[in-house]
């Protein structure tokens, strides 16, 4: 390709404002993806219309667009999913085309139809493809017909154990035996050999009979420890289709992607080509046009199986853009206008490596991420670093509300090699400043430096396997710990010295405490460390357990990030700790311990959200584990249960209430 070997995190495509596409495009979405689409429209000389709910009226995407229309109140069903209002906005503004982004109406065939009826272009595939790929069974049949690998299995009913063994042999081990009427894991067995198959058949049919009153069983290939790898395709309305290589999206929590990369460490060129060609043939089979994604499960032996096709722009599209140099939004717009693809398959490069981290407003210490809300009191993207791309739709002062996805941004880094891209990601995460909401950067940073991730040994089970007891935060090595303590101590001294500096004429002179030596006590995750600090100029020598650490830096103590040189190495760190003088630490021994609240008799909301239902009233007797109320937050319903058997003393919430984290819900006696 034209720019082989050049490090680019930018697009290599050319924007020609004279290229006739659309005069005005409405973006039926919000947040980062709306901003992302608007950016490309601007480059192409297209006017943009944003739609927004009333709480989003001062959102970034609204400010970026040339026009904005309010389409309803905060709940998505009344605004971003409100087709009538959006159709009105289109009419009102005269937009010629609609880009749906992802989520919301992006895969809604009804919406695509209505646009078609009004003569407005839908920037995406046609309704036929949306419908065909939207149905799990239909899409699998089409895929099969298009010679795409699907998960092998026996669709009929298995008669007896011996037939099960025979079918299993045909499919290849391991296999999964499951109840035809099943669900929720009941009547499900995994078998690795003939013996286990016989046994599994027996157990499963018993369990199926007792659970569902139906002992019919199915057998299909069990994909052990799969990876989630997807192929980006691009097809025009003239029967041309390309595959733009793969994205590795195996790092997930609760089936939601967290870290993605392109290319995958796992695929060899042959597998890649095979997957790409199958993806393209599927796209052709449904006469697909626009950008789309074919998702595969890939087993440890590099066998791959079709999972589903997403008929829209994916969240993680930027990493494909990074390695191919293509602007996918531009391509979508051109295709929608009827342009032919300019590239041939041989033009599609893999230039370098790109990694994307999804930065979420959520608490990573609670099941790898429970939503958090709040106002971004401080927000600084690490954009001063080269080869870093941040796709976001928020800014300092923005609210992360309970109504929408809690994603703050997509942080993408790029490098010639994976190693380089990872190094850059580490640096970018360390330089990212987010204050006001809890965020998942601690988890992201752990993932990208984890030896298993670094070596490419990942699967969709990565998080639960690596952190079986949940994520507990970074475990500092002895060296890191020392550096961190030394830094904290040096900063404390710098701040103390600064607080003695009074300017202007003073009636009563200052007698600064002129010490060159400080004895400090630093508390870090329950550990307490005594250390000595001596200073000369901007250089601090910190003595910890007989070892000396040199810390230096010219610090602006108002800045959220302080560049620090430790033993000559440059570091940026973000951590929480507490520094006390030796005296204060010593005297703290006498301080009374605060008695923690008895949490068994009070129920507090673990996260911000809305109360869906309250199932108790004062005076009720509840048993331990009994559901007391249900809190919904960002697509998740959480059942809150009683911690003990008791009588309900008081109820502080009702269905429909909005509650904040830590709000009192119910008190027990």
């Amino acid at each position: 390709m034209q720019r082989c070997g050049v490090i680019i995190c930018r697009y290599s495509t050319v924007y020609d404002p004279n290229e006739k596409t659309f005069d005005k495009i409405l973006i039926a979405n919000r947040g980062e993806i709306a901003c992302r689409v608007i950016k490309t429209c601007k480059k192409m000389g297209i006017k943009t219309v944003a739609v927004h709910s009333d709480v989003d009226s001062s959102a970034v995407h609204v400010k970026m667009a040339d026009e904005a229309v309010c389409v309803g109140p905060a709940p998505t069903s009344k605004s971003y999913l409100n087709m009538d209002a959006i159709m009105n906005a289109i009419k009102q503004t005269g937009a010629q085309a609609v880009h749906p982004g992802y989520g919301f109406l992006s895969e809604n065939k009804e919406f695509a139809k209505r646009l078609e009826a009004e003569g407005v272009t839908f920037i995406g595939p046609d309704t036929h493809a949306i419908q065909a790929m939207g149905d799990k069974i239909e899409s699998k049949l089409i895929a099969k017909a298009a010679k795409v690998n699907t998960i092998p299995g026996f669709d009929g009913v298995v008669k007896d154990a011996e037939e099960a063994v025979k079918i299993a042999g045909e499919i290849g081990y391991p296999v999964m035996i499951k109840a035809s009427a099943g669900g929720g894991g009941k009547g499900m067995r995994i078998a690795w050999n003939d013996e286990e198959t016989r046994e599994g058949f027996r157990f499963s049919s018993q369990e199926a009979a007792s659970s569902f009153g139906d002992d019919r069983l199915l057998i299909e290939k069990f994909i052990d420890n799969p990876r989630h790898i997807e192929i980006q395709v691009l097809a025009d309305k003239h029967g041309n289709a390309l595959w733009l290589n793969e994205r590795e999206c195996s790092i997930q929590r609760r089936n939601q992607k967290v870290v993605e990369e392109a290319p995958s460490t796992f695929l060899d060129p042959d597998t890649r080509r095979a997957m790409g060609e199958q993806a393209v043939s599927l796209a052709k089979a449904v006469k697909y046009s626009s950008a789309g994604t074919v998702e595969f499960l890939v087993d440890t032996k590099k066998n791959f199986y079709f999972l589903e096709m997403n008929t829209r722009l994916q969240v993680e599209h930027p990493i494909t853009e990074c390695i191919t140099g293509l602007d996918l939004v531009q391509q979508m717009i051109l295709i929608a206008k009827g342009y032919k693809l300019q590239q041939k398959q041989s033009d599609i490069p893999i230039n370098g490596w790109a990694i994307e981290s999804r930065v979420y407003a959520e608490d990573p210490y609670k099941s790898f991420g429970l939503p958090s809300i709040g106002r971004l009191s401080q927000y600084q993207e690490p954009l001063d670093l080269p080869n870093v791309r941040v796709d976001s739709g928020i800014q300092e002062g923005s609210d992360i509300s309970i109504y929408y996805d809690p994603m703050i941004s997509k942080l993408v880094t790029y490098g010639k090699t994976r190693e380089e891209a990872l190094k850059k990601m580490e640096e970018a995460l360390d330089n990212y400043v987010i204050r006001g909401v809890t965020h998942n950067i601690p988890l992201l940073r752990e993932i990208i430096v984890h030896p298993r991730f670094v070596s490419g040994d990942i699967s969709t089970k990565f998080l639960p396997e690596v952190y079986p007891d949940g994520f507990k935060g970074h475990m500092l090595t002895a060296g890191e710990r020392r550096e961190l303590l030394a830094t904290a101590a040096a900063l404390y001294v710098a701040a103390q010295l600064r607080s003695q500096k009074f300017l202007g004429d003073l009636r009563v002179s200052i007698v600064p405490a002129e010490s060159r030596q400080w004895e400090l006590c630093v508390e870090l995750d329950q550990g307490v460390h005594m250390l000595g600090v001596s200073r000369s100029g901007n250089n601090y020598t910190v003595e910890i357990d007989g070892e000396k650490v040199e810390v230096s830096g010219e610090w602006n103590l108002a800045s959220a990030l302080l560049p620090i040189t430790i033993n000559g190495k440059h570091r940026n760190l973000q951590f929480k700790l507490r520094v006390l003088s030796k005296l204060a630490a010593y005297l703290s021994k006498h301080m009374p311990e605060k008695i923690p609240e008895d949490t068994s008799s009070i129920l507090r909301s673990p996260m911000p959200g809305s109360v869906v239902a309250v199932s108790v009233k004062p005076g009720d007797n509840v048993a331990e584990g009994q559901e007391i109320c249900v809190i919904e937050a960002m697509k998740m319903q959480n059942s809150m249960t009683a911690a003990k058997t008791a009588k309900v003393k008081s109820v502080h919430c009702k269905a429909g209430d909005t509650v904040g984290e830590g709000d009192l819900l119910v008190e027990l006696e």
Partner: protein
Amino acid sequence: MAIYALMRSSLGLLHGLKCSFKSVGQIPYGAATGAITQAKGLQNARCYSVNHLSVQERIEKKRKAALTGGGQLRIAAQHKRGKLTARERLELLLDPDSFVEYDMFVEHRCSDFGMEADHNKYPGDSVVTGQGRINGRLVYVFSQDFTVFGGSLSGAHAQKVCKIMDQAMMVGAPVIGLNDSGGARIQEGVESLAGYADIFLRNVMASGVVPQISLIMGPCAGGAVYSPALTDFTFMVKDTSYLFITGPDVVKSVTNEDVTQEELGGAKTHTTVSGVAHRAFENDVDALLNLRDFFNFLPLSNKDPAPVTECHDPRDRPVPGLDTIVPFESTKAYDMLDIVHGIVDEREFFEIMPNYAKNIVVGFARMNGRTVGIVGNQPKVASGCLDINSSVKGARFVRFCDAFNIPIITFVDVPGFLPGTAQEYGGIIRHGAKLLYAFAEATVPKITVITRKAYGGAYDVMSSKHLRGDVNYAWPSAEVAVMGAKGAVQIIFRGKENQAEAEAEYVEKFANPFPAAVRGFVDDIIQPSTTRKRICRDLEVLASKKQTNPWKKHANIPL
């Protein structure tokens, strides 16, 4: 002989040489085989030094006794209660080695009830006093010693406190009192009462001259509570301190109410219900470290300008978050603290009374290093309206700032005074007038920013141009009007149909900053994100502001 003469004269005249003589005298004494004259001289010297030695020993003994207060047992008991000793507290509050103690040898003078006995005398009595430095700056301190007679106030105790207060006023330096006292020294009777009154008088005389801060670190009951009440700021330690006029037992006998000490006068009560205390801290260490930070905001006296510290936060830093903070719907709340934190240096805001009358926010911060007092209506609580409690809270803070040359920055989003019988019967007219009075009489630099609503009389009160505001800004979201659109329309167009249309017209006319701006009642309409830059620049200019009120004996604020 010459030597001898010198010795004689020095012995008689120079106190300073006694010490050196003592050490010289001891060694030759055992090894004295030299000249008689010399021996005779030494004998004389020995005579003196024996005498001296005993004094020195007594000094050392008394000092040692003073340092241990009520003794190790009581110190251990104090620690067990989760409290530090009077001296430990001072050590933590003041810069290392900066404490200069006064009156270590003072003892109580009571001779009744066996108090004259030696074992009932404690050098220094039940308070430690002196001066020291906090971040290099002078401060006078007293710290009541609960280990000596429960920190009770004797005549001597009061005298010690008065001595440092007198000097603090003469020098012009703040007084910090660490209170931990069971009350009056009952054995001393009226002497103790007189002591309290002596302190009260000094509290009043010092008021507005030097900042006075009380930190309640244990009991403080009966008449004793009035000293903290007269000081500028009263802070408390959670769980271990309480303040009340009469304790639970008396309450029970008089009003038959069952109440615990904590409920009656604990930190929570006084910081949320009564408004007696300005802030509470987790424990002694937390409180004293916070007090050090707090002290840095204050000038030493009314003769000093507001302190300016080294500032790393750029004075012209834009605050983009402010452009979107005020919601479009005027009925929707936002957090005034977000605005305050965004504008001030390094997001550092020392809030005063954060849990009392939360519909107004007051506290100290810095702008380009200079201490400022911040007053802001809090739309998040009761729509930010002014009521009795918030008016009094605001008024007291404004008066402190004015007394001590601290510029006042006011953020206005006020829908008016709170209506209702409770407020009227409670005297909102009288109490609301206090805030009005305080803003009006203040001569320090006054900068006002109207962020949204400024309705009715409350607009006037909140440091408006009419009350000598020096610089008054409006954000584009500001609405200066007599009242909200709905109410106004109901009055102007009473009985008319098309109320909605009339309301829209009213909104168009008045729900914006123009009516105030065209009359010069606001000096400029500014982009919210530039607020910090504007205020820093204005403070620079206003630093030399001179304004005096007419001569009066003292003003008569509606109390």
